[in-house]
């Protein structure tokens, strides 16, 4: 029940980012998640500069070095992997490829899936049917087969891995975008724009797309987590990223054989993945609450009037 008195002048909006920050402060879990993510992103950006080539320096005589020893430099604090390379360093450097791959995959699947979904939802011509059947096909196409096909025909590379992950996640955006468009295109402002003479392109891009985007972004946040996990599952099956490139997922996959003898090799990257995906999930929950006018009050200060 918002109260707007008929003659009051519309209030100027306070700084949107400040409000969001306030909401974030009210949810300590989401705040922690945001701080974690910020740290990881920072690591991804500054990592290579911070660690240099220490992450790939061999130490065959300190293979599987146990964590928490301060005998070696700080970078060995979390232990060393099967080739004696510092786990901390590799985590930091791996953040870049892990987050980079996930971000690129999520972004491209959102872009492609969203665009196709917009078209499929707005038009009822043959191509929108074609798009839907395509989505069906992609959905039931095993991602592993796709991974292998791409790996074989295009060769192992980060770009190709991104292609695989993006294609497999695409139908979700397509279907969501389409469903949203089906609803939005019946909305009055779309009719209004049409009655003013706006063409389909203008309606889609100017009127519908901006309203579909927030939903897609929310899905993208959760999907980011899914993509990191599927990437690690691909590594587990040997169809993911190939050495010498590595991601956290590949680190877990390579270290899994050592879980009983040198747990730390798979544990730290596993923890990093878990914290990242957990944070993303918590943040997207938070964002849902913020976006829902009926729930938003949960994050507000709720200052009471003086009695």
């Amino acid at each position, binding site marked *: 029940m918002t109260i707007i008195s008929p003659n009051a002048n519309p209030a100027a909006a306070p700084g949107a980012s400040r409000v969001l920050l306030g909401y974030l402060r009210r949810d300590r879990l989401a705040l922690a998640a945001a701080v974690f993510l910020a740290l990881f992103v920072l690591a991804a950006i500054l990592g290579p500069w911070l660690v240099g080539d220490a992450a*790939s*320096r*061999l130490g*065959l*005589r300190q*293979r*599987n070095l146990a964590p928490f020893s301060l005998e070696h430099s700080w970078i060995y604090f979390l232990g060393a992997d*099967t*080739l004696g390379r510092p786990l901390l360093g590799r985590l930091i450097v791996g953040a870049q490829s892990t987050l980079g791959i996930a971000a690129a995959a999520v972004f491209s699947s959102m872009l492609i899936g969203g665009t196709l979904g917009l078209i499929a939802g707005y038009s009822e011509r043959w191509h929108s049917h074609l798009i839907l059947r395509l989505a069906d096909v992609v959905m039931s196409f095993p991602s592993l087969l796709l991974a*292998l096909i791409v*790996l*074989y025909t295009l*060769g*192992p590379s980060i770009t190709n891995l991104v292609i695989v992950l993006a294609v497999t996640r695409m139908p979700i955006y397509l279907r969501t975008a389409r469903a949203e468009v089906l609803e939005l295109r019946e909305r009055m402002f779309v009719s209004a724009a049409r009655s003013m003479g706006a063409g389909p392109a203008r309606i889609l891009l100017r009127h519908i797309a901006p309203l579909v985007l927030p939903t897609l972004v929310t899905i993208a946040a959760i999907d980011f987590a899914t993509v990191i996990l599927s990437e690690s599952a691909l590594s587990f099956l*040997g*169809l993911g990223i*190939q*050495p*010498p490139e590595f991601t956290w997922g590949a680190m877990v996959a*390579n270290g*899994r*054989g*050592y*879980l*009983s*003898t*040198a747990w730390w090799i798979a544990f730290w990257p596993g923890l990093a993945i878990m914290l990242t995906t957990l944070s993303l999930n918590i943040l997207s929950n938070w964002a849902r609450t913020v976006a829902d006018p009926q729930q938003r009050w949960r994050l507000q200060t709720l200052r009471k009037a003086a009695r």
Partner: protein
Amino acid sequence: MKRSSVLAITSAVLMTAAASSAMAQAGQEIRIVLPEQPANLEPCGTIITNVGQILSQNVVEPLTVIDPKTGQPQPKLATEWTQVGPVTWRLKLRDGVKFQDGSDFNAEAVVFSINRMLSGKITCSNIAKFGDAKLEVTAVDDLTVEIKSDKPQPILPTLLSVVMVVSPKTPVDQAVNDPVGTGPFKLSTFSPQTVVLDAFDGYWDQKPEFTKATYVWRPESSIRAAMVDTGEADLTPSIAIQDASNPETDFAYLNSETTAIRIDTAQPPLNDLRVRKALNLAIDWEGLAQLFGDDVKRASQMVVPGINGHDDALEAWPYDPEEATKLLEEAAADGVAVDTEIKLIGRNGIYPNGAEAMEAMMTMWQAVGLNVKLTMLDVADWLRYLQKPFPEERGANLLQMMHDNNKGDAAFTIPIFYRSSGNYATLSDPALDKEIDAALAATGEDRMKSFKALFDKARKEVVADIPMFHMIGYTRVGSRLDWKPDITTNSEIPLANIRLKD
């Protein structure tokens, strides 16, 4: 479609019932956990590890077996053999042997089995060991067989160790999943979960201690190891080195595999001998050996000790980065483009820690100034680089490979790698070809000496490869069993050799 799915469900239910009842009568049962599901149980594919480990000498038996210590053929279903002509061998067969379906084992059965392998109507992996030899098999009498070939086969008795004799009732034109042989066990069930073998009462030799053998498979080494630990399984033939942590149960064995990197000698800058030498010198061999365990042997040549032609005296390349750098500088000074990008092509899952080894070697080569870039490929992709014809535009490349010569003779190694016609060879040296041909034609001491000389030359003058290690396999054997793995474990686990501790 519907009925078969019902069938599948029913059989799955039956299978689970079978599995749980099997648990009840341990003691006479042995449970073995393999790394991989056998795709099929065609006796003609026993050289495939997971097929051979189940069938070989358990369900089906070969004519001869190789003594793991000497590498020499020993009698099995054939009791003796003589070379009666330059291209003719005559075999005497064991008497009183019966197939599990009740048919008699005789010369006809041997002729049938060999012809079935040769027919080309089924995919027969084992026959590949014979190369392009043309064989003609005839029954001389009930227990005598004569084998004629188109050219001399000096090691035919060794080759006969891959000839699995099957019942004449086996279909000729169809690969089977229900093999019938003469072994001490007959196949009971083969499902996607298990293979179960039951003792065959009519076995000709001493009966094994077990009346039943169950095979299951798990791809994760740590889980296989854990299963033996918890008593869910008695034996697993192969675990990763990091899981071989218990000296009581974990045994290492030299497994006849030699790992190496092939250098593509046709591609600059790898066509320069100094670069190839530098590649060998730049590796910290002792450090690298850490990846494969304390028991691996540094390899100086492509065959393991005990193989006819192996040169014990040949020294492996040392670790000498200074020398490597010096050689590269010399080459560079002579205008060799040593900074060309060299592709290091690895294969996923080729052997335990294979990818780590490639990463380590890449880093070491980069440390001496070589521009090496690692690409890990899927098997089928990798094969394109391994075998002729090589891909066009492949560029300078190093190929991760593993060679398994368990046939006792260097003839299965040298021509493939070093003769210009060799399937894996990047060399093209007519003089070397001649030497190889001469060695292959030789026999006895001469043959051995020639092979040794060739390995010597390959190591010191040709340097077409970077031999790494003679590999070690690890098995975990449950504490109630008395059994040790040997060099044949990769291809067979004869249950008759496994005893219970009392």
